[in-house]
Every structure is written in structure tokens, then in C-alpha cells.
């Protein structure tokens, strides 16, 4: 009543004593009592009563008990009141005002004042809108009241048949944008979800009939939010109830229980049954039809984004619907009509220009499905089409979101087509923005010949001098560049196939795309390809060198040697797979794959050569790894009696080692990198077991020479003493030729050389005394391992020498921390010798040593 009184005073305040207003006022007073005359709804009244009567057995009782009136009356009254109030509310906008009248007459006589009049009119309209905005609650309250009526009478049916049509009719009829926008929103907010679900078609049906100024997206969007939240809640409660095994969900209050869970379950069923998606879709389509191609692209994108969001939330499994959403966008942005049935204009369509807002909206649209779908976006038609409308940087952002989503989802990529698509989508991460138009996405053919790769391995790659600083200064944000490349690298580990031939093709495809990234990227993105190929090689090796079956089948002919040249060819070895599959039927145990270990080594070598172009030290270390893996292949072949192949792989290992050495000589120039490289060489050579003696000798001699040539004396000393191990391999479980590879005299030479360098170093700085202690440790190591030329006299002599050095240092200088460390180290070594003298097993051996 207060509200009505307020309204009345407002109305009279405008000074327009209209009888309509009076009528509203009177009805307001009579509102609580039974009112027979029901405005224009004479025939509706009976409908309402009938519907109310039909809605339940209890309806009559309650209606009877209330002598003051029935619910039907209330509905009737509220609807009438709503109608009338709305009319008045709309009319305020068009009410003539004093200034308006003056302005109007003035303009008739004085044309030069027209500008001022327009200004005045505009101000007037604004003021009216402000005033009306303040009054809107009054009109909306009627709808609120309607929604608060006893739900035993106001059922979903009655809402759909009587209440909603009446309200909508008024909304359309009033032709006032402000009223239309507000009231549509009002309906969405005040009535229950179930009602909306049942009447969605009707509600959306009026959207195209609204005035053009009304923002349909807001209305449709709110309705979608409402319904998807309803669906979320329902599903949440449903799963809670399932978890709690029928118990009342704690956060839903006490009265939830089984019944509520059941009704929620019904709600979930209901919403999935109603084809809300296509109702929204049709509604939006009608908007497109009405507005034609005048709609700004960002509006189309926003509408489709809303629809896509709704579909993802409510119908997560319907991929087709998401495709539809994207398809409409793609068509519109491509210059076509957003209207699905709209005729495609003849000839080539010019793609629409996107402003920065549209670009952001499109990036958002394409990122949204990634969270929930991850890899499955590849199933969506138009997804990659739409991506091409984005500028390169935005595509890169989407690619980052995509990679993260795929990595988080933990799904593997198991299909070649899928991998190609994925790699095309993330092209902006894989390569720089192409400068020319012909440089389109994908990087289709990797055209560098094998010879070039081999040349690259030798450090004479084409275009190297000018490529050296590629992109080094061009990248404005090197931090995120690395992060991005790390993401791409991770992707490689998701490529999986149980069929080793398919897995090989996957890696070939991946490499073909990734090598387009140039030197600055390959260290990040191709190294994972190398290691994935190693793992694949392990699988192939197991199959290829399986213990032979009792019946001696003819050894499988590895047809790979002929294929080697084609290893990098774009097409998969389809024919080979088919023919070898046939062969497989004949003998299931025989190795029947097109890709064997040898072929993989070619692939590995090529890939390492590519990486070496950008990062020689990394390339060098990869070569060492490949050699080491080839050596293990030789072991595996030997183990099953295929000694011929065994020596072949041993030769491959040697070959790769030799290439690594060349790379070291030509490309690894930093002195620290050289020192690290030699340490890795020594470790790798000692880990290999199948080298022929001559090969081994050549390699270890070379290594020792590299060590002796290092720039810094201290580095020389440290690495030369490590090289001593090369001539006395000790840890070897697989190789029978250990002793054949040993050359004790060379061990001694290395250690003596190290001593000489250490002596020179100590002249320069006493802190280098630690080098002597390190060498002492090495002498003890070889002595303990029975290296024949290392005798107790060497050890006793070195102990005496170090003791003297220590004494001299003590007298000459104050202890630096390095010297202190060396002193401690020396004491511990002496302690170690004493310990060995006491231990039963070693007492005899260590007895002659003097400490």
C-alpha cells in the first residue's frame, strides 16, 4: 500500500489528473478484497479459475476457506494492475512537458534555434528515463507478487498458459525499449527455474519482436545463466546425494533428504530433455535474420560465446552443438551471414574486419571450450577455421591455453591426424610469424635434405653465419618464450602408439612441424623428440632382438637400409606396413615392423644434427647418448646370438661418437663447455661396452688429447686424471673384452701428466694443492683395482710430497678456505689408507704404503 501511495503521489505530482491513474489508485485500495470487475480480463478470469481448480484436490478447500477471495482473483488482479501500471509507466516517457511545448512552438518560428531545441528534447528524454527508472520497481512488484502466490495454484502450466502470455503480450505491445528490457529481465529473475524451463520457447519467441534498442544478448544471457545454474545446482545435489548414499546433503539444510534429491534428479532429467540449446539457438538465429549483416562481429561472437558456454555447462557431451556455435561465427566472420539458412552470396566473400574488442572476444570464445574439452576441441569443426581470424599473438595465447589444457588433462595423442591438427593449431608457438602470405601455417614439407643434415652435424650447416643471432634481439619477451617452448616440448611426450611403426610416424610428423621453429626453438622442442625416439627404440629393440624361438626361422630382412634415404620423407611407409603385416601372419614371433632400430638411428642422428645447429653443446651430448644407445643395441643383438648385427650397431656407435668428436672440435668453443664435454665423453666411453679395440683406442686417445688441450691448467689436470680411467675400464658387466681394452702404462702416463700440470698450478697458487690430493685419490683407486703399473711407491711418494706442500703452505701463507678444504681432504685420504691397512681384506695390499 505504501508503494501504491507513493506511486499515486508521483503521478499526481506530474499534474496530469487522468482517470486511468485514478482507477489504478482505486484498485490499489480494493486490492485485498474480492474484486469482481477484472479490467479487460473478463474471459480470462474463468480460465484462471478453471486452471486453479484443476491444479489439485486441495485447491477448492483452500479457496473456500478464504472468504476474502481466491488465488485466481489475485492473479487476475495482479495482471490487470501490471498492465495498467505499465501503460502509465510507458506513457510518462511521452508526456508533453512545459519546456517541450515552448521549445516546439519556438522552433516553428525561429529555425536557428532548432539545435537548442534538439538539445532540450534530448535532455528531457534523459530526465524522463531517469525518472522512469526510479519508478520501475512499482511495475516490477506486480511480477514479484505473482511469483509469490501459493505454488499449489500457480503451477507451471498456469504460468505458461495464462500469466506469461499475458505479461509478454503487454511487453511487446508497449513498444518501449526501457520497459521491454526491464520487464524481460524481471521475468527471468522472479519466476522459478522450473517455470522457465517449461516455457522457454514462449519466452524466447518474443525476443525478435522487441524493439531494436533492447539488448537481446543480455536477456538471452541471463536466461542461460539462470538455467545453467539451476542445472549445476541440481547436478551437484544429485551427486552429493549419491555420495552420501541417500542421506541429506549437509549444506542443503535439514529438509532436503531423499525427496529433494529425487526432485533434483528429475530436474536434471528435465533440463536435458528440453532442447534448450536449440531454443536459444533459434532465438539467436531470428535475431540475426532480423539484423542482417549490419551486426558488428563482436556482437555475433558474444552471442555465440553465450550459447557455447550454455551448451558446455548443460550439455557437456554434445560436441555437435559446440561445433554449431563455432560454425556460425566462422561463417559470419568469413563474410557470410550469421543466419544459418541465409543464402551464401556468390563469389569470394571478404572476411570481416575485427576490431580489438572483437579479437579479445574471439580469443575468449576459443579458449572457453579448452578447459573442459582439452584435446577434444580437435573434433570440433570450424575450431581451427576460427583461429585463423585471430592475429598471430592472440593465436599464440590460445595455443598456450590449449597446451596447458591438454597437458593437464593427461590424455595422450594417439592419432596421426590429431597430432597434425594439434601442431597446426599451435603453429604460433612453433614458429615465428610468417612474413609473407605464402608462408602459411603448418610447415608442410621439411625440405632439408639428408646431406644437409649430415653437413650440419659436421658444423657446416648452410646459412649458419647469418643465422647465428636469429631472433636473439627480436624477441621482446625471452622469459615467456622459454616457458612456451617448454610447453611445446612437454607435448611431445604425449604422443603414444602401441604400434612402433605408427609411433615412428608420429615422431616424424612432430619433427617436421617443430623444425620449422628455427635454431632458437629446436633445443627445447626437438630434444624431447630425440628422447621419445630413444624410448621407441627400446620398444623396437625388444621386439627385434627377442630371444629366438626354437625353430630357427630365417632372420627377418631389415628392409630399412633401402629406406634410409626416405626416412624423412613426408609420407608414411604405408606399403611397407601392409606388406610386413602380411608377413606377420606367417610368423607371429618374427620382427615384422617397417621401422627397425637402424632406421631409428638415422632419425636420431638427423634430429641431433638439427639441434646442434642451435646448441652445439646439447647436440654433442645427444650424440653421446645416441652412441651409448647404439652400444646397448649391440649388446641386445649379441645376447640373442645376432653377432653380425651386434658388430653393425657397435660400428654405428663408433660412427656417432666420431661425429660427436667432430662437433666438439668445430663447435664447442667455450672453455667451460669444453671441460664439461670431455667429462661427458669419458663417462660415456666407459659406459659403452662393445667397441672394437681399434675403435676404442682411437676414441680414448683422442679424448685424452682433448683433455690435455684445455685452456685452463687446472681443467687440464682434472680431466687428464679422469682420462686415466679410459685406459683401465673397471665397471663392466657385459663386456668380455675389458682386459683387452686395458692399457695400464697409459694410466700411469695420464696420472703423471696430471701431476706435472698440478705442480705448475701450485706454483701459481698454493690453493691448487687440492689437485695433488685428487690425484692421490686416483692413484689409490687404481692401486686398489690392481692396476699393475701403479705401485705402492707412487702412493707413498705422493703422500710425502703433499705433506711437504702442506707444510710449506702453512709456513708461507695464511690458510685460504681452498687450502683448508684440501687439508681436510688429505687427512681423510690418509685416514682411508690407515683404515684399509686395518681391514682384513685390504691389509696386505695396503701394508707397503707409508703414511
Amino acid at each position: 500500500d505504501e508503494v501504491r501511495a507513493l506511486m499515486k503521489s508521483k503521478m499526481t505530482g506530474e499534474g496530469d489528473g487522468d482517470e486511468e491513474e485514478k482507477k489504478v489508485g482505486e484498485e490499489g485500495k480494493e486490492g485485498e478484497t474480492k474484486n469482481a470487475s477484472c479490467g479487460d480480463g473478463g474471459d480470462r478470469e474463468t480460465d484462471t479459475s478453471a486452471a486453479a481448480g484443476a491444479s489439485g484436490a486441495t485447491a477448492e478447500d483452500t479457496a473456500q476457506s478464504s472468504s476474502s477471495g481466491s488465488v485466481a482473483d489475485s492473479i487476475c488482479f495482479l495482471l490487470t494492475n501490471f498492465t495498467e501500471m505499465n501503460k502509465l509507466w510507458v506513457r510518462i516517457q511521452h508526456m508533453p512537458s512545459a519546456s517541450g511545448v515552448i521549445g516546439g512552438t519556438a522552433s516553428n518560428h525561429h529555425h536557428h534555434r532548432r539545435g537548442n531545441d534538439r538539445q532540450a528534447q534530448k535532455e528531457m528524454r534523459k530526465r524522463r528515463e531517469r525518472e522512469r527508472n526510479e519508478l520501475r520497481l512499482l511495475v516490477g512488484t506486480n511480477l514479484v507478487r505473482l511469483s509469490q502466490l501459493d505454488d499449489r495454484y500457480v503451477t507451471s502450466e498456469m504460468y505458461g498458459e495464462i500469466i506469461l502470455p499475458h505479461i509478454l503480450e503487454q511487453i511487446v505491445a508497449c513498444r518501449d525499449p526501457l520497459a521491454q528490457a526491464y520487464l524481460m529481465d524481471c521475468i527471468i529473475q522472479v519466476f522459478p527455474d522450473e517455470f522457465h524451463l517449461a516455457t522457454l520457447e514462449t519466452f524466447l519467441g518474443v525476443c525478435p519482436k522487441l524493439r531494436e534498442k533492447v539488448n537481446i544478448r543480455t536477456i538471452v544471457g541471463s536466461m542461460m545463466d539462470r538455467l545453467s545454474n539451476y542445472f549445476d545446482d541440481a547436478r551437484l545435489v544429485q551427486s552429493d546425494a549419491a555420495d552420501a548414499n541417500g542421506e541429506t546433503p549437509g549444506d542443503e539444510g535439514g529438509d532436503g533428504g531423499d525427496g529433494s534429491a529425487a526432485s533434483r534428479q528429475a530436474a536434471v532429467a528435465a533440463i536435458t530433455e528440453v532442447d534448450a540449446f536449440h531454443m536459444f539457438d533459434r532465438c539467436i538465429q531470428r535475431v540475426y535474420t532480423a539484423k542482417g549483416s549490419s551486426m558488428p562481429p563482436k556482437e555475433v561472437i558474444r552471442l555465440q560465446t553465450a550459447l557455447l558456454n550454455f551448451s558446455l555447462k548443460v550439455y557437456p557431451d554434445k560436441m555437435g552443438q559446440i561445433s554449431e556455435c563455432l560454425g556460425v561465427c566462422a561463417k559470419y566472420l568469413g563474410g557470410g551471414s550469421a543466419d544459418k539458412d541465409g543464402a551464401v552470396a556468390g563469389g569470394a566473400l571478404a572476411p570481416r574486419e575485427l576490431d580489438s574488442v572483437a579479437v579479445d572476444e574471439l580469443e575468449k570464445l576459443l579458449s572457453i571450450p579448452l578447459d573442459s574439452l582439452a584435446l577434444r576441441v580437435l573434433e570440433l569443426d570450424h575450431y581451427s577455421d576460427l583461429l585463423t581470424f585471430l592475429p598471430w599473438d592472440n593465436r599464440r595465447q590460445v595455443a598456450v591455453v590449449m597446451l596447458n589444457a591438454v597437458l593437464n588433462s593427461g590424455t595422450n595423442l594417439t592419432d596421426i591426424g590429431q597430432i597434425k591438427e594439434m601442431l597446426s593449431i599451435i603453429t604460433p608457438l612453433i614458429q615465428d610469424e610468417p612474413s609473407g602470405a605464402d608462408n602459411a601455417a603448418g610447415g608442410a614439407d621439411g625440405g632439408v635434405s639428408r646431406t644437409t643434415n649430415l653437413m650440419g652435424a659436421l658444423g657446416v650447416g648452410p646459412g649458419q653465419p647469418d643465422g647465428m643471432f636469429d631472433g636473439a634481439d627480436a624477441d621482446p619477451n625471452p622469459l615467456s618464450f622459454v616457458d612456451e617452448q617448454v610447453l611445446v616440448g612437454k607435448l611431445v611426450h604425449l604422443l603414444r602408439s602401441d604400434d612402433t611403426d605408427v609411433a615412428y610416424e608420429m615422431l616424424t610428423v612432430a619433427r617436421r612441424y617443430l623444425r620449422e621453429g628455427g635454431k632458437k626453438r629446436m633445443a627445447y622442442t626437438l630434444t624431447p623428440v630425440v628422447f621419445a625416439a630413444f624410448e621407441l627404440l627400446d620398444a623396437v629393440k625388444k621386439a627385434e632382438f627377442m630371444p629366438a624361438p626354437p625353430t630357427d626361422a630365417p632372420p627377418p630382412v631389415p628392409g630399412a637400409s633401402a629406406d634410409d634415404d626416405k626416412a624423412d620423407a613426408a609420407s608414411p611407409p604405408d606399403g611397407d606396413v601392409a606388406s610386413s603385416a602380411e608377413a606377420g601372419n606367417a610368423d607371429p614371433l618374427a620382427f615384422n615392423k617397417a621401422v627397425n632400430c637402424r632406421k631409428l638411428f638415422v632419425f636420431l642422428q638427423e634430429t641431433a644434427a638439427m639441434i646442434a645447429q642451435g646448441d652445439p653443446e646439447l647436440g654433442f651430448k645427444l650424440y653421446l647418448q645416441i652412441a651409448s644407445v647404439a652400444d646397448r643395441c649391440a649388446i641386445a643383438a649379441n645376447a640373442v646370438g645376432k653377432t653380425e648385427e651386434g658388430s653393425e650397431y657397435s660400428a654405428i656407435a663408433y660412427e656417432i661418437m666420431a661425429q660427436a668428436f667432430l662437433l666438439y672440435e668445430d663447435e664447442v668453443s667455450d672453455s667451460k663447455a669444453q671441460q664439461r664435454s670431455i667429462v661427458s665423453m669419458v663417462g660415456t666411453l666407459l659406459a659403452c661396452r662393445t667397441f672394437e679395440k681399434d675403435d676404442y683406442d682411437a676414441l680414448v686417445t683422442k679424448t685424452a688429447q682433448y683433455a690435455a688441450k684445455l685452456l685452463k691448467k687446472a681443467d687440464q689436470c682434472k680431466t687428464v686424471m679422469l682420462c686415466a680411467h679410459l685406459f683401465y675400464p673397471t665397471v663392466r658387466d657385459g663386456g668380455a673384452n675389458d682386459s683387452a681394452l686395458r692399457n695400464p702404462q697409459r694410466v700411469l702416463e695420464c696420472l703423471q701428466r696430471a701431476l706435472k700440470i698440478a705442480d705448475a698450478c701450485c706454483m701459481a697458487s698454493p690453493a691448487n694443492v687440492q689437485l695433488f690430493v685428487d690425484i692421490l685419490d686416483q692413484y689409490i683407486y687404481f692401486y686398489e683395482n690392481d692396476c699393475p703399473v701403479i705401485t705402492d711407491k707412487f702412493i707413498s711418494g705422493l703422500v710425502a710430497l703433499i705433506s711437504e706442500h702442506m707444510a710449506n703452505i702453512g709456513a708461507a701463507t695464511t690458510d685460504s678456505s681452498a687450502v683448508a678444504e684440501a687439508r681436510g681432504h688429505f687427512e681423510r685420504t690418509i685416514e682411508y689408507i690407515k683404515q684399509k691397512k686395518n681391514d682384513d681384506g685390504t691389509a696386505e695390499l695396503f701394508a707397503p704404503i707409508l703414511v
Partner: protein
Amino acid sequence: MANFGELVLVLGDLHIPHRASAIPEKFKRMLVPNKMQHVVCTGNLGSKENYDGLRDLAPNVHVVSGDVEYTGPQATPFPETRVISVGEFRIGVIHGHQVIPWGDHMALSMWRRKLGCDILISGHTHKNEVVEQEGYYHINPGSITGAYSSTTSDIIPSFVLLAVQGAKIVCYVYELIDGEIDVSKTEFTKKAA
């Protein structure tokens, strides 16, 4: 936590993204922040992201440089070796590629004497080990991602947790075998001087 004394997480050779895409999910769930006092890493993190991940786990993170440590603008140069004191123990850390021959316990013993520690932690072989040598201990946590190694076959993802109480250590080795976590336990005390 008091029951366990100080907890030291020992892991290494992640090689992400070169050789693996992530730490196995089951391990990741076990590595929760604020449970451990120290993280010891044998190196080869692969990228800065992984280093940051470790620093989120514990206040003290000790990383040594691996043989293929990440480089570039984000790189923090890690030292070749480190020695830390936990309880009454001196724990030395080295990646292990410098220990020639690789994985050789006599060679490891040389490094242990050089660093003057009771326990030497090293990686590189991707094969976890807890080995007593001359009354001292050599611990290798293996590779937490089960990264490929050219010298070890059938690699099992693993890491080590040390519970240090004064002169006593309980050493747990966690392995991921066929998707299941397997834990083995070793107890030892500091060698009397």
C-alpha cells in the same frame, strides 16, 4: 612431524621437458608444501618452472648442477657440489656425471672423502640406491620422473625421503612400480668418529 625429526626430500634428474612431461601424479600428490625442512636435488631440473616448484615445497632448497642443466635467461647457475648439515650429519650432494666411472662406489667414495661428508647423495644413473660403503652411505634417489637414461634400462620413477634425528636417519625410498607406490625403508646411524 616431531616424531620424524627433520625431513629431507631427495630427488633429481627430472629432465622436464626433455625426457618427461611431468612428475608422476601420484608422486606430485605426496609432495606437499611445509612438510619438509630441506629439498635436495641432484640436478637436471630441465626448466625454471621445476626449480620454482621445489622452492614451493620447503624453505631450504639445495640444487647441484646436472650435466644437461637448463640454460638461457632464466637459468640460475647451480654449484657443482654442495654440503649441508642436517642433525649430526654432513650431507654432500653431487649430480654424478663427474663421478668416473658412473655409479662406481669406489669413485663415489673418493668424492665423499673430498667433500668430507657422512652421506653422499648423487643421481645421474636414474637408478635409486642406498648403499653402505666403509660405514658411510651413498644415496641415489633415481629419477623422479623416470626419465630415460642411455645407460640404465627399465627405469622406475623414484625419490627418497630422509628423516633425520640427531645421529640417526630413517631413509625411505619411494618407487612407482606399475602405477603403484612402493616404499622401502633403511635405518642407519652416523659412523663413530
